[in-house]
């Protein structure tokens, strides 16, 4: 379904200091490099020490950095976020792991009321990263597949990042750690070991708040992020054979949004599909549509189209989950319709 290391567009082996890395390894590299260079960075979460994390993101870290910088906690998400925030108040840069992003609901109050508002209310910066796996496609069921970005996109004070490629994952985790604000770093678990590309070894930073043109095209734009970037790419390959060239914008950061990149692509292609794996009602597509309305209404030559998951919990059984998730054929079908509009 997704592009793999076979895809030449994901490779740029001519550049120096590159080595192939999966999305997961790229995150590990970014985290490792930041811990090496900044002693105030430490990891805290459930089963991240000797076990190395449920997805092995911190595998081997405790052996290298010691138990004081890779801290296993009780199963208590509010305590994890609260403790990370407290440590941040003393000038540390904690990286807190949610074993699955679905569990972020357990720490909702701590994040939204304690952490996100602290700089605004009382001038206390909260330089911490909340990271972990989100997303479906792995038959994880209703509690191990969700995309919980929107409550936090809607929380002033938070930054929300959702990379789609190994290079971006590495560059953005480093930026997130260096940022002086709380950053929610969403790792799409479907991508962890499915995609691989050349990733720069050191000093590679991707700025928060900047979208990326994943594929240039003239006919219509697909604005998307995370795993759906690859769904859009597969659709683009099919559509290209029909002479329809779609442009893919990978948002990379969901808050703050890159309004300029969104506006630019609409001004260029005049037709836009908004694609995300999150459910439809209250999803990011609604916000994107509003921005396009505000910034580029006169440039539109067709209706704004939303392709999202269903407004249901994420179902468990593979045929149900397949039906629930946005698919390549959905993008192809809607793109053909919009192209003909």
């Amino acid at each position, binding site marked *: 379904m997704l592009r793999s290391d076979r895809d030449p567009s994901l490779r740029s082996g001519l550049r120096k200091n590159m080595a192939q890395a999966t999305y*997961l*390894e790229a995150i*590990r590299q970014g985290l*490792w490099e930041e811990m090496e260079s900044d*002693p*105030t960075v*430490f990891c805290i979460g459930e089963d991240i020490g000797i076990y*190395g994390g449920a*997805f*092995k993101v911190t*595998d*081997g870290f405790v*052996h*290298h*950095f*010691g138990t*004081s*910088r890779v*801290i296993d906690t*009780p199963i*208590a998400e*509010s*305590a*994890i*976020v*609260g*403790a*990370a*925030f*407290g*440590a*941040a*108040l*003393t*000038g*540390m*840069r*904690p990286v807190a792991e949610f074993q699955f992003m679905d569990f972020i609901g357990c720490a909702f*109050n*701590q994040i939204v*009321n*304690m952490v996100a*508002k602290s*700089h*605004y*209310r*009382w*001038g*206390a*910066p909260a*330089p911490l990263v909340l990271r972990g796996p989100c997303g479906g496609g*792995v038959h994880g069921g209703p509690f*191990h597949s969700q995309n919980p970005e929107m409550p936090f996109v809607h929380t*002033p*004070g938070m*930054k929300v990042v959702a990379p789609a490629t190994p290079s971006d994952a590495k560059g953005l985790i480093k930026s997130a750690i260096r940022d*002086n*604000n709380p950053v929610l770093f969403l790792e799409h*678990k479907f991508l962890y*070991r499915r995609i691989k590309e050349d990733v720069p070894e050191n000093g590679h930073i991707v700025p928060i708040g900047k979208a990326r043109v994943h594929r240039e095209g003239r006919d219509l734009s697909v604005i998307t992020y995370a795993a759906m970037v690859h769904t859009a790419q597969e659709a683009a390959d099919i559509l290209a054979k029909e002479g329809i060239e779609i442009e893919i914008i990978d948002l990379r950061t969901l808050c703050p949004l890159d309004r300029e990149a969104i506006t630019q692509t609409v001004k260029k292609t005049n037709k836009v599909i908004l694609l995300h794996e999150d459910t439809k009602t209250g999803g990011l597509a609604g916000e994107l549509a509003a921005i396009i309305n505000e910034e580029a209404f006169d440039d539109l030559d067709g209706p704004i189209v939303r392709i999202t998951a269903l407004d249901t919990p994420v179902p468990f059984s593979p045929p149900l989950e397949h039906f629930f998730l946005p698919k390549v054929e959905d993008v192809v079908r809607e793109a053909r319709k919009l192209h003909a509009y």
Partner: protein
Amino acid sequence: MAIKSKSEKNSSAKASAKKTSLNGNRDTGRPGNGASMKAPAVRVNQYGIPDWRLEQPEFEVREVTDGPEIHYEIKGKLNTPVPPIRESKYLTKEQHLELYRWMVMNRRMEVALENLYKQSKVVGGVYFGLGQEACSCASAYALGPDDWFAPMIRNQGAQLVRGFHSRDIMMQYMAKAGSPTKGKDGTSHYGDIEKRHMVSPISMLGDLLPVMAGVSLGARLQGKELACLTWIGDGGQSTGVSYEGINFAAVRKLGLVLIIESNLWAYSTPTEYQVNVKDLANRAIGYGMPGVIIDGTDACQVYDATYEAVERAHRGEGPTLIEAKLMRMKGHAIHDAAAYVPKEMHEFWRKRDCIDRFQKYLLEKKWLTPAQDKEMIAAIEKEIDAEREFAENSPMPEGHTAAEGVYCEGGCHDIKPKYGMPQKARRSEGKLKESEAAIHFK
């Protein structure tokens, strides 16, 4: 008497006193006052939790349906004599007097707040710590200079003790531009991570507990053992995050000093309908940390218990749970007349007013004369008047500043470790190796 949990085996609470009780062993060198000889022995309750109180009030509040009427009724011994103050093991005469001054300042400032409210100069409500001044002031007074604290709404006295001014609190309530939050938030919802090491509370209860554990953790990573003091009510500790925070502090032996202010009323709900235990300090056994019961209207007990907990935190031995028994003597906030409180219950605690008792104690000891007392109160009144005038005359914020400060950007803060760069505790020269593929979901 040292604070001791039953979970620590093979020693009775009594025996442990000699082992762990400290007297003036702190860097700041506070000598004992020699008064400890007079203090009566400490009881332990049925679960082995030390109870420093000199009386154990026996009464219970119940919902009573009386025809069409439903109200709270109190039953028990309500005419027992007011107990004496337990002599402090640690406070000097001068410290007694300084602490007394803070308590009076706390109360008088709240009277000033009430007056400002009545003159419609306050935005929103006002919260009071009436009857809880000893608990707020004596505990904050027991902290070392570098220690952190996070007050709840009734701990305005602690803010004064730790270096904020009455004007700061007044301007918070009046939503002034010069308030610590520049009008972004009100009441006690402010803090200072630079100098006074106060973490801002939020309205949701219990969320400060893991945060204060985290402050202790952050400092420890920088090589510093801090005491991190916070308070919570018998109502507030019902929240799930309270458990999470206390448990995490206990597991990692972090320097949390937690005072549960058992003030008997959670807004309008009595403790009896909040928890099914008589002494919340018993929960320390479940957390695996020391617990102690004190009389929250006795400034000396509050100070001594906090002092020992602070010492324990400085030694890196972990958190302490102090349950302070007292009563909230006003409603939840100024709008609430607390008509649900049985009159005889209010009367019982009014006789135990923490400031009256401490004043009487100091007068009896002849550490304070009535003339000096009068003079001190007059000086406090004068100071508060000046503070109030400053607060009243300061401007409201400009509307457009509402848009500022959501993010920390453009170099507004230089973030660096407060207590020194953590040591790189690297255990190997190894490089990052690819992780194994056995994962939760593929």
